[in-house]
């Protein structure tokens, strides 16, 4: 067994060395441009602390020059003993879409073409939660409208996410605190995850994302809201750059009716635990066994 392991290891070492040599030759040929470094960069999960630090430094420099602002790119790992959960009060939501735009601003989503991580669906009160009756394009002067209720959707942060299973490159995974993230540098843009997601939570950069310099949020996380590139998939990360610093996600803060609740599922004193204990909750498409950590409830 030991021997077998050694053999395997040496083979892997050989392949590694071979790829390093090839990479080195190629790098030399291209005069060590930073773009080429980025091209050869490995999967985030396989990088050492040192490599990550170097990459982050380069990224901060690149973004600062591009947007003319001091940038911070964090790579803060999950905090032990945290498992983030979310709850949304369907009886309070009025469908104002403030969360949608707070999310766009906080998470540097492309303005043109438009990407929204949150989609608010207008539902028919008589039909209940029925997606075939849902309307995402509602546009009245005043919400809420007679006979309707609103169901905001975004990544449901499943415990059994199918999007990560189908990814051919391991470019997306679930972090120890339960957040499903994407390594934008590693994603090849095959969009298999989008076909696999039952909640329409994954979005693709069909073109080069476009954000005005004055609207860019320079407080970023590597696996979250840092500026994206053309041809990669992105999604809600529970505002990883905020939640790992102990703050609420932007959508929770902005909600004018207090319909959005967020917290640590492992902390018995947390707000999210209180809701699970005292309200009856439901999850979307429970028959698919994705086991979301995003709950809906009726608070009043």
């Amino acid at each position: 067994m030991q021997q077998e392991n050694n053999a395997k290891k040496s083979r892997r070492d050989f392949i590694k060395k071979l790829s390093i040599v090839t990479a080195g030759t190629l790098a030399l040929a291209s005069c060590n441009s930073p773009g080429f470094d980025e091209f050869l960069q490995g999967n985030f999960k396989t990088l050492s602390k040192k490599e990550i630090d170097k990459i982050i430094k380069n990224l901060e420099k690149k973004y600062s020059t591009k947007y003319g602002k001091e940038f911070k790119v964090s790579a803060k790992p999950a905090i032990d003993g945290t498992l983030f959960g979310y709850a949304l009060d369907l009886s309070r939501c009025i469908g104002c879409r403030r969360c949608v735009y707070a999310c766009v601003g906080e998470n540097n989503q492309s303005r043109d073409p438009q990407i929204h991580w949150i989609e608010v669906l207008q539902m028919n009160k008589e039909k209940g939660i029925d997606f075939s009756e849902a309307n995402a394009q509602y546009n009245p002067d005043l919400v809420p409208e007679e006979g309707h209720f609103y169901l905001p959707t975004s990544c449901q942060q499943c415990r059994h996410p199918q999007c990560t299973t189908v990814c051919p490159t391991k470019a997306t995974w679930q972090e120890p605190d339960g957040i499903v993230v994407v390594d934008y540098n590693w994603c090849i843009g095959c969009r298999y995850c989008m076909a696999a997601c039952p909640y329409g939570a994954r979005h693709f950069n069909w073109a080069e994302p476009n954000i005005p310099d004055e609207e860019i949020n320079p407080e970023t996380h590597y696996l979250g809201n840092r500026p994206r590139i053309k041809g990669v998939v992105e999604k809600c990360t529970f505002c990883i750059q905020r939640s790992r610093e102990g703050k609420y996600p932007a959508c929770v803060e902005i909600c004018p009716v207090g319909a959005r609740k967020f917290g640590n599922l492992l902390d018995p004193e947390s707000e999210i635990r209180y809701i699970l204990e005292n309200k009856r909750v439901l999850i979307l498409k429970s028959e698919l066994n994705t086991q979301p950590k995003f709950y809906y409830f009726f608070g009043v």
Partner: protein
Amino acid sequence: MNFLRFILGCFKIIFSGSRVYFAWLFFLLMMIIWGGSGYLNQLENGLIVTNMRDSVSWAFYIGNFTFLVGVAAAAVMLVIPAYIYDWKPIKEIVIFGEILAVCAVIMCISFIVVDIGNPQKFWHMLPGIGTMNWPASILTWDFFVLSTYFLVNLTVATYLLYCYFYKKHYNKSIVIPLVLFSIPMAVGIHTVTAFLYNALPARPFWNSALLAPRFLASAFCSGPAILIILFQILRKTTKFEIKDEAIFKIAELMVYAMFINLFFTIAELFKEFYSHTEHLLYWKYLYFGIGKNTELVVYAWSSIIMSIIAFVIFLVPKTRYNFFTLNLGAILIYSSVYIEKGITLIIPGFTPDTLGQIYVFVPSSTEIHTAVMIFSLGFLLFTFIVKIAIEIIFEGYSIDSLKIKKTKQYIDEKELTSINN
């Protein structure tokens, strides 16, 4: 060295031919350039120039990919009777099925490459240098089986031609195991491609155990249909030989595939429409439309109707043994399967999307351009290899043909020097 000479011979075959041959090459080249302009546009601006969006995130490209996997798999349709039942009339044409498979796989992979957002990062999914998500991701399986299938068919076709070229007998202990291996591989590539869609609970339209069997049945209809027509064209225009008997035998085998294909379709339609669950939504969109959205209805019905007519034509011996009706049937079944795989399989999987929203997808001009580019490239490659195969197998082109020319050249030079002297 021997192999180099073989390659040299192949090149000589490719670059000589009739005017019609060069006109055909010129036409394909023009098509590649015309289509390529669209693909360049996509490379520059991103996939935004396609009509795919978040709602319908896979569409025309992936549909074509699926169809071509079927074409590639169908080479087996010819291999099974030829080798298992040792049926001679088909045996010598098996190689053309394999060549078709090789070209179809190249087109498949091309359709995947044009569909992904960052094709230059393709190496991320390779084992060793990348982080291949094997065995969890079916896409890695698909890549694996497609490349293996490609290599097996390429090896067999090249080896057979190489032996013919050197007028040697091929080594049965090399060819037979590889050919036998390619049979389960052919079933494998289409099954795995079906599994790609099949096991996504998010998409009820595909989430049926019948998907893989349906894929195989339809592939065994469309692949031989192409070959039936192709063999007749080659028989008329080159020295390629095939007996009518062999063509009719292929047609007879296709009847079974066509029946099973229709039967599976009906079985699936019955289950969906009679049980009338929420999953009916996608089928409703496909066959009747939802509200004003009836974009796919005409395709869905024409595919079914063409499939039925073709089945009747192939079933009745009188029409099967008549080349006019036989070809009509072949064109009908080919079109039926192309529409089914290219249009009515992928798009309704996404319409309505997972949140019930309807985004109407119609391929953009860039997508048409790019598809034309890939098909023309595939045809070009196929033309080259088929020409090599025909000249080597049926026109006696061999190593001697190279030598004769050399001696001739030598004599010419000798004459020249003697004249000069």
